[in-house]
């Protein structure tokens, strides 16, 4: 039934946004992760990508998480000579995670998730309204 299909497609959107949420939480949690050895590279910000996928069993285009990309922008460098991860000049590299960007990304994931939930809710309401014809 087409209604079941739209619920399944919306569910794929939910899964994709849940995966994106995981990547955002990784970025936020690692916002202050410093390198494990002196002069090394710290955590690099990850970027979630989405791909549309043909679900043969469903006969519809669903969404799935694509390969996780990395942000190649520069790390933040702070001068902290006493830090265990400081290099010869006393500089420590901090991750290229900007909490503001992560928060806006998080909001976007939240809104997309809610939109997919609304699709499921509207579909269920349509099914209910159809069944109500029999209950008159």
């Amino acid at each position: 039934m087409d209604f079941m299909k739209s619920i399944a497609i919306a569910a794929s959107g939910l899964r994709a946004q849940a995966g994106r949420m995981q990547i955002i939480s990784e970025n936020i949690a690692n916002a202050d992760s410093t390198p494990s050895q002196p002069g090394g590279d710290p955590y690099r910000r990850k970027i979630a990508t989405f791909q549309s996928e043909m679900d043969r069993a469903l006969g519809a285009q669903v969404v799935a998480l694509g390969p996780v990309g990395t942000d190649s922008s520069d790390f933040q460098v702070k001068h902290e000579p006493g830090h265990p991860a400081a290099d010869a000049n006393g500089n420590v590299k901090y991750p290229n995670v900007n909490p503001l960007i992560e928060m806006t990304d998080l909001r976007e994931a939240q809104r997309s998730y809610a939109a997919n939930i609304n699709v499921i809710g509207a579909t269920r309401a349509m099914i209910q309204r159809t069944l109500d014809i029999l209950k008159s």
Partner: protein
Amino acid sequence: MTIPAAAAGAYASTARLADPSAGLGKAVGAAGGGSDSSFGALLKDALAAVGEIGRKSDAQSQALVAGKADMIDVVTAVSETEIAVQTMVSIRDKVIEAYQNIMQMPI
């Protein structure tokens, strides 16, 4: 799920129940979509289909408790079961209502 076909079949079966003379019943059955199954068989098929969906959602729920399934899969499976059960119950209620209407017809 082919609700229109099921409804047509149900209608045909009710018509046959109301009139024991098989000839007329078959004629109405043919007019009502060509379905030749009895109401009992129809209900049995519908129950089996709903039972199958229910078993799937049960398996998903158990996998969730065991930490092996995705919550989204479980929620969609359970909601699919709910819709299937509601559809079947609605059709059954309507068919039985029609049957009772015919049985209570003053002759």
